[in-house]
């Protein structure tokens, strides 16, 4: 797939910035306004998907190859675990051990913003990896139309 027309590419280039900005806002302000790590991560993956559809699948994969995406995915999951285990050192599992701060401030509510950020990295990168895998490994039906012989064997 080579991507779409010039109009789509230009609009995608402009709009993707705002999509990433909105995703960052939803993640970072997840403990103040509606949102959080999961929708922010999915919006991040959707922005990358727009790039993938508009410019062809190679452009985002050049920035973030498959192996590195998998590593980032595991790092997000491990970060969430690490926050939970750090609570164990202060008392019990998932203890909100950081200072709480004032309500309605960006830096408040202890470990919640960190949890949101690690969840968003995990969700966004893993969805990106699945999309990339779906489009990279699409060899079930090659352009000729016939399925390959070793469909069952793998």
């Amino acid at each position, binding site marked *: 797939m080579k991507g779409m027309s010039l109009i789509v590419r230009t609009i995608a280039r402009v709009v993707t910035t705002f999509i990433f900005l909105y995703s960052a806002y*939803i993640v970072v302000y997840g403990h103040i306004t509606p949102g959080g790590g999961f929708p922010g991560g999915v919006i991040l993956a*959707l922005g990358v998907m727009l790039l993938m*559809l508009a410019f062809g699948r190679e452009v985002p994969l050049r920035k973030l190859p498959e192996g590195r995406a998998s590593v980032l*995915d595991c790092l997000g999951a491990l970060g969430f675990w690490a926050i939970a285990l750090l609570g164990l050192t202060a008392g019990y599992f998932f203890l909100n051990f950081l200072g709480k701060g004032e309500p309605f401030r960006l830096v408040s509510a202890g470990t*919640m913003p960190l*949890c949101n950020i690690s969840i968003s990295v995990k969700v966004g990168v893993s*969805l990106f990896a699945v*999309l990339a895998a779906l489009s*990279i490994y699409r060899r079930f039906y090659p352009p000729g139309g016939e399925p390959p012989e070793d469909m069952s064997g793998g």
Partner: protein
Amino acid sequence: MEVLLYTLLGFMVIGCIIAVEIKDLLSAVVSVGIVGICLSVIFLFLGAPDIAIVQVVVETLCLIILLRATVQRDDTTIYKYIESFAVATILIFFGVFMVLAYRAFEDLPPFGHPLMTVSQEYLKEGLTMTRAVNFVTSVLLDFRAYDTLGEATVLFVSILGALAVLRRRGRR
């Protein structure tokens, strides 16, 4: 309020029936989108913007994947074979389900008056205990963080499995 909810539910049912009955796969995918967007509007009117955001975003992702999957196929029409035994089985189970559901839902509290025994404590103590203004986040990441960890683990394992399966077929 309830009239609005019933109207949106009616739209969702119509969208489902169209998605099942229509012959063009692309149109079926588009009418599945009706269900998602109506559900998101229902969540907004019920006062749950967090879930509405998640619903819209995940629905968009699924629809794009489904669209890619259906557009890439050459033959996008489906042919119906109506089997009378399958239809009869479905109707019988639907009837049994409706009777059981009616008896089960009789004991539920009425609409708009939920039982607030545990969640009342969260609403009362949440702001002083966690200092997070968004109560949904404070429940998800503080009071009930175990559940969120479980969800993250489920997502992690399922995506690992998906990557493994796709990769195994791709490599010769």
